[in-house]
C-alpha cells in the first residue's frame, strides 16, 4: 500500500543534507510551509540554496534560516532593502540571484516538464540580460533561460491523501504546484488529511505523483 504520510517532522526531513537546493512554496503569508521550514532549521543543514518568491519576511522561519547563516544562496524575485537577506548580501555573506517572477515560475515548470531550455522576452532589454545569451525571435530580443530544479521542495496544502494528492484553497497554491514538479523530493505539510478517493479527481490540484512525503500539521499548531 502506498502511504506517503510520514509520522514525524524527523521523518519528513530525513535525508535533507548540507548544500541542498530547497524550493520553498508560498507567496507573502499564504501557502508557506511554516512547520516544514522550522523543521529544516532544526536539521542544522547549511550551505543551502533557497528558491522562493522573496527573501524571508520578518519573524519567518526563512528569515531565521538566513540569520543563522544556513543559506549560501538565495534565488528569488525581490529582497526588501531592510531585510536580513539584504544585509547578509551587502556583507558578502549571501549570494543573491534576483529573477523576474514569471521567469522563476517558468524555470520551475521547465524543470518539472523536462524542457532543457527556453527563450523569453522577459528581462531581455534590461540589466538582468548583461552577459547572458540572447536571441532575436520574430523581431523580439529574448533571453535563454534554463530549468531550475530543487533537491527538495517544501509545500503547504489544505488537504492531502496517502497517495500524496494535494488540494489547495483559494490563493494557497501559488508556487506550490510547480515546485512539487520541479523537485526530486517534494514534501507537503497539510492542514487536513483525506481518505483515498475522498478528494474528487477534478478537484485534485497536485497529483500525488509529484509528491513524495506528506506531514499532517493541523491548523493552528505551528505559527512562525
Amino acid at each position: 500500500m502506498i502511504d506517503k504520510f510520514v509520522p514525524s517532522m524527523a521523518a519528513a526531513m530525513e535525508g535533507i543534507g548540507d548544500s541542498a537546493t530547497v524550493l520553498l512554496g508560498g507567496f507573502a503569508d499564504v501557502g508557506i510551509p511554516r512547520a516544514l521550514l522550522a523543521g529544516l532549521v532544526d536539521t542544522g543543514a547549511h550551505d543551502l540554496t533557497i528558491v522562493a518568491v522573496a527573501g524571508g519576511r520578518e519573524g519567518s522561519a526563512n528569515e531565521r534560516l538566513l540569520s543563522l547563516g544556513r543559506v549560501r544562496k538565495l534565488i528569488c524575485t525581490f529582497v526588501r532593502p531592510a531585510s536580513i537577506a539584504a544585509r547578509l548580501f551587502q556583507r558578502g555573506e549571501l549570494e543573491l540571484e534576483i529573477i523576474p517572477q514569471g521567469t522563476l515560475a517558468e524555470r520551475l515548470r521547465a524543470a518539472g516538464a523536462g524542457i532543457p531550455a527556453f527563450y523569453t522576452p522577459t528581462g531581455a532589454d534590461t540589466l538582468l540580460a548583461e552577459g547572458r545569451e540572447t536571441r532575436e525571435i520574430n523581431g523580439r530580443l529574448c533571453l535563454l533561460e534554463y530549468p531550475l530544479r530543487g533537491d527538495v521542495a517544501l509545500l503547504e496544502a489544505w488537504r492531502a491523501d496517502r497517495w500524496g494528492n494535494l488540494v489547495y484553497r483559494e490563493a494557497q497554491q501559488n508556487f506550490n504546484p510547480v515546485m512539487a514538479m520541479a523537485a526530486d523530493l517534494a514534501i507537503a505539510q497539510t492542514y487536513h488529511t483525506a481518505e483515498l478517493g475522498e478528494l474528487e479527481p477534478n478537484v485534485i490540484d497536485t497529483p500525488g505523483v509529484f509528491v513524495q512525503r506528506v506531514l499532517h500539521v493541523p491548523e493552528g499548531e505551528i505559527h512562525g
Partner: protein
Amino acid sequence: MAELAIKPLGREAMAERVARDIPEGWLVNLGIGIPTLIADFVPEDREVLFHSENGIIGMGKAPPKEQINPFLINASSQHVTLRQGGSYIHHADSFAIARGGHLDLCVLGAFEVSDSGDIANWARSADEPVKQVGGAMDLAIGTKRLWVVMEHTTKEGAPRLVQRCSYPLTAKRVVKRVYTNLAVLDVEPRGFVVRDMLPGLSFEALQAHTDARLHQA
C-alpha cells in the same frame, strides 16, 4: 520650473481617471501603488476581470474586516475577495496569462517613461545593492496594453516623461499610455501625444514640466 496655477490630481483621482477608460470585459492586472486603487473605481456592474499574479482571476474588492479570508490575498498582500465566476490558478499558469498576451491591460506605476514607450519602474540605480524585480518585467512584455499611472514629476519637480530613461529599464517600447496627475498622454510613433489635460492647464505649462517633446492630439 514654473509653479502650477492649478491643483494636480491626488492618488485617488488619478486612479478614478484610469478606471473611467477600462471597458467591460477586459482582463486587467494592476501593479502595486496607485494602480491597485483603480479597482475601487470600477463599478461592480461593469464586469472587468482583475487578475492577480499569485493566481487569481476575477478578483473582487477588499472584504469587510470580519469576513477576511487569510488564504485570499492579492499580489500586494492585501486581503481581497473572489467574484462569482472567478477562479484560482497556480503561479506558472498565472504568468502564462501575463506573458502569453491574455491581459487586455496592465497598469503599472513607474519612475520614468520615455517617449518611445520604455518604462523604468524597478530600480533607482544600476548600482542598487539589492534589486526588487518582482513580476513587472513579465507583465510589461506580455500584456496587450501597458498603461502607466504616476505623478507627472518627482517631488522635487524633475520630469518623469523623458526622452530617455535614466533609471534601469523594466522593458523597452511597451508603454501605450500614461496617466499623470496633470494629463493623459498616448505613446505614439511620433512620441507623447496629449489626450487630456487638467482644466486650466495649458499645453505650454504641461510641456514645461515634461522632458520629452509633447504633441497635440
